[in-house]
């Protein structure tokens, strides 16, 4: 499991870990039933305090992304898939917000934007059909 | 400070300020006081028979007065004959060391490193060399001139070439050459320096050899060339080690560490530490200072074909052997390396534990050094004719054993008592052993003046027992207070205290029993036994853990 932590970017480390795990699940790199490393191991790998990792795992467990099995470690929960969709929508909606802000700044109307999206998706499709 | 030359001069002055003032003071003291002392003793240093006269007087002393008075008078005569010579030699040696311009390097913990910062300054190497070389020569000539013209010195042949100014200049050139050219080989450098020192000061060869034009001038040129080259090479990083893998280094690197696989206790580990850090080096220096002269003499005698050592040379050598360990221990006592103290003070080791380990290691070091000296003394008959020395010491024959024992314990004692001062971490306290030595010296001089006249000596002698009893009482009181404080604060374990008291009793007994056997019927026995009790260190050892705690918990 490859995670990347950056300090000083404003968001708490435990949140970065939790979000990245959720992203990995959402993009399919972590499937339901995969084991994620124990807290100590991940802490040493990332060079982060174990309590921070523990907090991230607690957050993930609370949200149902992972579950602890007695004595044998932490695994991605089977119930991850519906959350995956929720996560995917959340990520894309963030990108949509950014796009909308940019468009507003450049004075492009939302109608114009929708037309642009449809046009671009059409132009991409033929390439996929090949 | 406008020029590099004045800057260097200021640096030299600033570093050795107090010592230079002390040298000037010493020269003045000898210039002013020594002639007065000589006239008082009826001794004319200028006459060519001065030495024989002194020896005759020493011989006469044997029969008159009591033993302590005799000893004091002999020592006083020794001082009158050799004092100026010793002073001159020591001050000139110091100036020589000063102009090798080495200092202590905290990174390598090497006490004789040429400061690399001089090479990063915009000064050329010829300038550095010129300044140090010419400055050194000038200083030597000036100091030599002061000693020779202001202080009337008897002609004493104990030291080899010391009364030859060009000889001193050659010594400086060679010393600079060895120190700078061999900067990468500290042990070799030390051995060569000791050999150099011995050749110049304690040489068994005849004086005329040094006056021949084929000896000193080539050596002077050699020294200058070596110094010049050494400084250049040092600046550009050459001559800083063997360019090929040295097989000896491979061997010593592969050799397993001797000693137990795992130390049995912290005390044992600390003893090993103190031995390796300090006492082993002390023993090596003592061994070196004994073996190098012996080796040189054997070389000169059997290879160069010169005859066996002559009488006065033998006497000088015996005197050197007996006084070298105390002098060496005193040098170590006054300036022990303090660099590893923070590391040790962070270990879970009590102050008492640190002290006991150091005392034990120093004891072992002292024992080892003296064993080497005794071996050399026993080997003396092989080296030369022993007649005059036998004559001279026959008067002291019975006392030989106790004198030897006394000097041995005295030399160990020098380190042990200064421990508290140096461990306190305060610079002014670390200088205390030096001041105490000075006071003892002045006390000795006063004693000598009293010993000159029988009447004053007898009245003084009546006071002595009472005085000594008071001092012994004060000593035990101070010791009691110190040890009580140590136990109360937990600085010293009760078992360690018991061990130390046992050792103290053993040391005192070792000195006391032979003295009792030899002197029990003599009148000076009581003062002698009290003196023995005073001499073995007790109270200052008690203050040692307290001083260490003062440093450790500032």
């Amino acid at each position: 499991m490859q995670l990347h932590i950056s300090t000083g970017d404003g968001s708490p480390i435990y949140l970065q870990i939790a979000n990245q795990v959720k992203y990995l699940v959402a993009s399919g790199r972590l499937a339901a039933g995969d084991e994620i490393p124990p807290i100590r191991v991940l802490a040493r790998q990332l060079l982060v305090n174990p309590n921070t990792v523990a907090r991230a795992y607690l957050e993930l467990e609370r949200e149902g992304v992972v579950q602890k099995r007695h004595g044998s470690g932490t695994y991605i929960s089977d119930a991850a898939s519906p959350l995956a969709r929720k996560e995917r929508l959340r990520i894309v909606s963030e990108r949509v917000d950014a796009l909308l802000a940019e468009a507003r700044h450049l004075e492009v109307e939302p109608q114009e934007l929708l037309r642009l999206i449809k046009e671009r998706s059409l132009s991409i499709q033929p390439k996929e059909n090949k | 400070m406008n020029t590099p030359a004045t800057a260097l001069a200021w640096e030299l002055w600033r570093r050795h300020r107090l010592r230079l003032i002390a040298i000037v003071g010493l020269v003045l003291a000898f210039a002013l006081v020594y002639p007065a002392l000589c006239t008082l003793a009826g001794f004319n240093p200028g006459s060519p028979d001065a030495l024989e006269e002194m020896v005759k007087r020493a011989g006469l002393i044997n029969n008159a007065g009591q033993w302590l008075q005799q000893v004091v008078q002999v020592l006083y005569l020794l001082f009158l004959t050799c004092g100026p010579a010793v002073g001159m030699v020591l001050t000139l040696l110091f100036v020589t060391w000063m102009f090798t311009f080495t200092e202590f390097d905290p990174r390598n913990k090497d006490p004789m490193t040429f400061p690399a910062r001089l090479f990063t300054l915009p000064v050329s190497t010829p300038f550095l060399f010129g300044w140090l070389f010419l400055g050194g020569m000038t200083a030597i000539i000036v100091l030599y001139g002061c000693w020779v013209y202001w202080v009337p010195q008897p002609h004493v042949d104990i030291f080899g070439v010391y009364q030859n100014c060009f000889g001193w200049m050659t010594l400086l050139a060679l010393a600079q050459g060895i120190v700078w050219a061999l900067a990468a080989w500290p042990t070799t450098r030390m051995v060569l320096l000791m050999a150099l020192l011995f050749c110049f000061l304690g040489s068994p060869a005849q004086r005329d050899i040094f006056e021949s034009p084929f000896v000193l001038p080539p050596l002077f040129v050699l020294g200058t060339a070596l110094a010049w080259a050494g400084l250049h090479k040092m600046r550009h990083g050459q001559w800083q080690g063997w360019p090929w893998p040295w097989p000896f280094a491979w061997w010593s690197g592969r050799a397993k560490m001797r000693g137990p696989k795992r130390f049995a206790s912290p005390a044992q580990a600390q003893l090993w530490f103190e031995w390796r850090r300090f006492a082993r080096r002390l023993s090596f220096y003592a061994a070196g200072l004994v073996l190098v002269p012996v080796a040189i003499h054997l070389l000169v005698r059997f290879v160069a074909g010169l005859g066996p050592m002559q009488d006065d040379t033998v006497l000088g050598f015996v005197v050197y052997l007996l006084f070298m360990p105390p002098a060496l221990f005193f040098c170590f006592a006054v300036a022990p390396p303090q660099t590893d103290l923070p590391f040790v003070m962070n270990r879970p080791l009590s102050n008492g534990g640190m002290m006991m380990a150091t005392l034990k290691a120093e004891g072992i070091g002292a024992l080892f050094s003296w064993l080497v000296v005794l071996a050399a003394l026993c080997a003396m008959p092989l080296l030369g004719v022993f007649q005059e020395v036998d004559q001279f010491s026959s008067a002291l024959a019975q006392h030989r054993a106790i004198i030897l024992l006394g000097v041995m314990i005295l030399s160990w004692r020098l380190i042990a008592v200064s421990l508290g001062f140096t461990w306190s971490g305060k610079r002014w306290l670390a200088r205390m052993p030096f001041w105490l030595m000075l006071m003892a010296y002045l006390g000795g001089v006063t004693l000598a003046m009293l010993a000159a006249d029988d009447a004053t000596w007898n009245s003084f002698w009546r006071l002595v027992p009472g005085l000594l009893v008071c001092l012994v009482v004060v000593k035990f009181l101070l010791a009691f207070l110190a040890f009580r404080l140590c136990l109360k604060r937990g600085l010293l374990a009760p078992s360690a205290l018991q061990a130390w008291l046992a050792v103290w009793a053993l040391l005192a007994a070792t000195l006391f029993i032979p003295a009792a056997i030899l002197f029990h019927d003599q009148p000076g026995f009581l003062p002698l036994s009290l003196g023995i009790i005073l001499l073995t260190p007790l109270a200052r050892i008690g203050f040692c853990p307290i001083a260490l705690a003062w440093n450790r918990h500032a």
Partner: protein
Amino acid sequence: MNPTDASPAVEITGLNRRFGATLALNQVSLQVRRGRVFGLVGANGAGKTTLIKHVLGRLKAQSGVVRVFGLDPVADPVAVLGRIGYLSENRDLPAWMRVDELLRYTAAFYPKWDMAYAEELRRQFGLAPRAKIRTLSRGENAKAGLLIALAYRPELLLLDEPSSGLDPVVRRDILEAIIRTVADEGRTVFFSSHLLEEVERVADDLAMMFNGRVVLAGALDDVKENHHRLVLRFDSPQPSAPKVPGVLSITGGGREWTAICNGKREEAVAAAARAGGRVVAEDSPSLDEIFVAWAGTKTE
């Protein structure tokens, strides 16, 4: 090691220290809880090393109380030092010793010394056993010091500016050692540093010192949550930094200024509004920015 032992590993109350005329420590109080990593940050000369020396017993408290595991380090140095693993800033290892001699010598003082673990660490750090300490580079020297501080698994790992002047590889080794220590249950780490990214990564609790005073102390998460970075936009361009009471520092130019405040967010927003500015963006500052903000305030 009793996991339910709630008493702090190090407790300092009202500590003052004067060196001649300078007041190096001014009423310093802090608690290092067991099983946590405590980061002490401060500028050079703020008093971090002085404080650590008090914990070691190398300085005696002139006024105030210092207790390590409930013991006084000055009165009982052997008991306290036996439970502390210390890496000094000064790298005061004896230059004449070899690495294997250093291990054997130090092993004698700590009953819990693990020879196998020490050997594993030595191999991991790449230290040749017969190398003299004098010949080690700065990084290897730091590693040797760290090795002898870790090998007996001390209850308190005390590090004084462990990463100063070291390359990133050695810094990673040190961070890993810190994390490994605290991941083994119950052991505590107390380290001082001015490399704030490292403190942010591994510290649980934080204390910030300036000029001998502790200006900030608490859990790292709480400290970060309490500080806010507000981007203020003023109606008219400000010729100099606007005075907004309640903020620690304010930087910027023209119309837009960035202010960092500690906990008093509402007051700061109100004060900014009074000065003619409004908040256009808000997020959490990094520890670096918090440190610089506090450094800029006048602490007497």
